């Protein structure tokens, strides 16, 4: 083999703490290295051209680039060596930026370590073999998990692009958090008026199959060929018969249940359609409160239903959907305000969340759009908004900013004045974060036109006294303590990962951060991709986002899916396991171990042997470390390669 080694400066990112010229020089002493040089930016066009030229000039048959992480630029350089006529797998990388230059300042130690990392890359490369991918067919259906605005957008864009879409929604209606909002910032547009048509489009689109009141139970397969088991939860109403007329709701005798759609500030019946614009507009029975289930007798809804849709004996049902790609759009949930005991959320009825306040503002809410405080139904005059409750607070383990609270608080202050002209709003804030088109102007309007009093400082405590809520806090600009006698206190509860998000991530085999938000493939350049091929993200499941950002990501994820499906066949990664049939003793251990069922038993001249199904193997190498014979080897991560790397490190 004739190996060429390229040590990248990455501007000063590497060169600043690594002597790349010395690393290049040292590389020349390693076996089969015929050329070594340092280069300013290996990934740039001149950098790549330099590599290609060297391959041609020096007749190189293998290339090592020492630069950034292979998770970043391995595909870039593989393509470059391919352009020069080499097999793209005759290439290895040494990560001397993330793993060397950026984590230590000792130039001597860094240079030395870089040489070591180049050396193991060379030893690995010497044992690489040319590989070529095989092709496999794909199922051009996509599943979107979550029917909030991000998921709706992704589903509609995919469907308009001609794909079959399966949309799975946990609640009985799509719409997500946006459906609960009264108005949207900064235009004060009606939320349900702009979301409603999109929801109807979902219902009417011939390419969209909607599974509402359903959850993803299990996911198998891989990009192009996923099998998803969807649990359709028992609704106790046959939706093929239910017309959404609402007669059951009128007659249901169990009327005092906390209404989840109204954020539990209003009552609802045990058989319920959450809101008038619900899609699908179908009733669901809550068996935890329904008298038929709790007491064993009632049956009123069954009697009044004009179509006979009520089925008390309905059970959960599992349906399997085969899809080629999945978009996760599971959104967020709210921080539990009762954890901030000093504000008394959960203890005092007149301390509510911003989303509860939305329901009080909404004409379809429990008060018909009249602001009435929960304790006594009186119209509040003084409303205090407290920002960052469960955001930017290390003591609550919520150090991140929830992003949209500053804006919706400004909107709510404006709407409060609109609803109650003689009211006064107070906003306790830490900083006002309004980076968006017309956003800062909007918060200004809340202050200047609508007279909301913004007080920069934290609230220390909220307590009831004589029918008022006393809000005590600091005004850090005036350097004084402030006490406001409020009629209603609205907490801008922070956004959290949706309940159950980590479990779904595990099923999707994608990463999530310590707060449960899903990890994108690259924070800057791959915001909707994940590290699992064929799985994409949209909306707040990746981190708190407002509506336009969520919609943008929904469309972006759809574009990714459409691009993926633009080919009829996908290329599989050829770094997969291969069986040496002479060494295989047919014990079948690899078959049992493989998580993907990618190994099958075959007969070869009357003997049992293992065989890898190329397009199914995902290249984890579990079989390789299980095989007692060393007969099944993961290409490019063979035992010999890893041991050669070990030897290079230990015996030099």
């Amino acid at each position, binding site marked *: 083999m004739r190996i060429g080694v390229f040590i990248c400066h990455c501007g000063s990112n590497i060169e600043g703490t690594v002597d790349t010229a010395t690393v290049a020089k040292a590389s020349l002493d390693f076996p089969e290295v015929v050329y070594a040089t340092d280069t300013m930016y290996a990934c740039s066009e001149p950098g790549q051209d330099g590599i290609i030229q060297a391959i041609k000039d020096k007749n190189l048959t293998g290339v090592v680039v020492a630069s950034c992480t292979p998770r970043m630029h391995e595909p870039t350089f593989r393509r470059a060596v391919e352009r020069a006529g080499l097999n793209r797998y005759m290439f290895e990388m040494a990560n001397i930026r993330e793993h060397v230059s950026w984590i230590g300042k000792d130039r001597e130690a860094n240079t030395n370590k870089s040489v070591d990392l180049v050396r193991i890359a060379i030893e690995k490369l010497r044992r690489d073999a040319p590989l070529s991918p095989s092709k496999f067919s794909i199922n051009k259906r996509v599943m979107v998990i979550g029917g909030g605005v991000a998921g709706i957008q992704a589903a509609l864009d995919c469907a308009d692009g001609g794909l079959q879409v399966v949309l799975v929604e946990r609640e009985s209606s799509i719409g997500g958090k946006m459906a609960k909002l009264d108005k949207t910032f900064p235009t004060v547009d009606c939320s349900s008026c702009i979301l409603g048509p999109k929801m109807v489009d979902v219902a009417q689109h011939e390419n969209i199959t909607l599974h509402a009141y359903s959850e993803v139970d299990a996911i198998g397969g891989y990009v192009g060929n996923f099998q998803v088991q969807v649990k359709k939860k028992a609704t106790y109403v046959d939706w093929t018969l239910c017309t959404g007329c609402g007669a059951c709701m009128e007659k249901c005798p169990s009327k005092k249940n906390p209404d989840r759609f109204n954020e539990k500030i209003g009552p609802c019946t045990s058989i319920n359609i959450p809101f008038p614009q619900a899609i699908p507009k179908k009733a669901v029975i809550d068996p935890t409160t329904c008298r038929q289930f709790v007491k064993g007798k009632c049956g009123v809804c069954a009697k009044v239903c004009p179509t006979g849709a009520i089925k008390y004996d309905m059970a959960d049902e599992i349906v399997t959907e085969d899809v080629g790609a999945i978009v996760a759009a599971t959104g967020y949930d709210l921080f539990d305000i009762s954890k*901030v*005991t*000093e504000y*008394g959320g959960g*203890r005092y009825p007149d301390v509510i969340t911003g989303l509860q306040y939305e329901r009080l503002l909404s004409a379809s809410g429990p008060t018909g759009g009249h602001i009435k405080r929960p304790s006594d139904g009186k119209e509040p005059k003084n409303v205090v908004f407290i920002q960052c409750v469960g955001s930017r607070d290390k003591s609550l383990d919520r150090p991140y900013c929830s992003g949209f609270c500053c804006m919706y608080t400004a909107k709510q202050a404006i709407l409060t004045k609109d609803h109650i002209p003689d009211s006064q709003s107070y906003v306790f804030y830490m900083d006002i974060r309004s980076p968006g088109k017309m956003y800062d102007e909007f918060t200004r309007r809340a202050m200047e036109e609508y007279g909301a009093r913004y007080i920069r400082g934290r609230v220390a*405590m909220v*307590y009831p*006294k004589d029918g008022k809520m006393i809000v005590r806090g600091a005004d850090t600009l005036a350097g004084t303590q402030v006490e406001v006698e409020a009629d209603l206190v609205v907490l801008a509860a922070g956004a959290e990962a949706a309940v159950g998000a980590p479990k779904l991530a595990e099923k999707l085999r994608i990463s999530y951060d310590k707060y449960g938000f899903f990890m994108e493939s690259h924070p800057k350049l791959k915001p909707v991709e994940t590290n699992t091929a064929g799985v994409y993200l949209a909306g707040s499941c990746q981190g708190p986002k407002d509506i336009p950002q969520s919609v943008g990501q929904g469309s972006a994820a759809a574009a990714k899916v459409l691009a993926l499906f633009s080919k009829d066949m996908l290329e599989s990664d050829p770094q997969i396991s291969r069986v040496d049939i002479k060494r295989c003793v047919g014990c079948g251990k690899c078959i049992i171990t493989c998580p993907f069922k990618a190994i099958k038993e075959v007969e070869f001249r009357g003997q049992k042997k293992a065989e890898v199904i190329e397009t199914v193997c995902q290249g984890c190498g579990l079989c390789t470390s299980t095989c007692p014979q060393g007969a099944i080897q993961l290409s490019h991560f063979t035992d010999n390669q890893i041991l050669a790397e070990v030897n290079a490190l230990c015996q030099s």
Partner: protein
Amino acid sequence: MSEAIAYYPGCSGLGTSKEYDASTRAVCRTLGLDLVDIPDWSCCGSTPAHTKDHVLSAALSARNLQLVSGMGIASAATPCPSCLTNLRTANHRMEAPAMAEKVNKLLDAPYAGGVEAISVLQALVEKVGLDEIKAAVRTPLTGLKVACYYGCIMNRPPELMAFDDCENPMAMDNVLSAMGATVVPFPLKVECCGASYGIPRQDIVARLTGKLLDVAKSVGADMVAVACPLCQMNLDLRQGQVNRALGTNFRIPVPYFTQLMGVALNVADEELGFGQLCIDPRPVLNKALSGADAQAKGA
């Protein structure tokens, strides 16, 4: 029945809060909680020590912990939150080897750690338990509406005190509920009473304590139960000053929670020391109890 606990009354226990000390001993005895006096205990250092010198402050408290350690006892209970803070802070500070070395130089015998300091309230809740406390009630405090006032340092800082919720503690609420009293939701249960400003700045104490009494009254409390000698003093002894400064006419009894427990557990009146309080709770107490009694008979 339960393990022995060393008892650290604190300086107040021998002076301004004798009734807290006496009622604590009587209640614990009745509940079978074995409090063992620490021979030759000394001051915890209180506020002056740690404002002057952290090593000295830690040494003053560590000396007492070392004595407990010598008795072969693993935990020490104190009725006074201020003592508790100092004892727990000393334990925390001495986790750092450099600090431990400095402190041990000042002590007669080195303290190796290992003695847990807890409040009498925590001891009652954790070592005796609410169920047993409830079972021991002889005269339920039915009809008595009481606000539980914990004071500002009983549960703070939470990392150090590691007991109950620091913003909305419930331990005393639960204990007095178990006694049969009606515990009213008192939102200012961990607010500052003004503490030692009672001497240099009475106006501050009048304002802060006045607010506590005002809210207690507004939530319908017959009395305010406390767990801190200094809080007790500010709310009870200075209630007249508050009234003069604010033009109010509060007359709210402020007993220690252990005194109320004593009543429910049928502890002899002379051990509870109600006479030591400025506003004697007994008339209000008797009225509430007899009212409930009459109601029970009427029904």
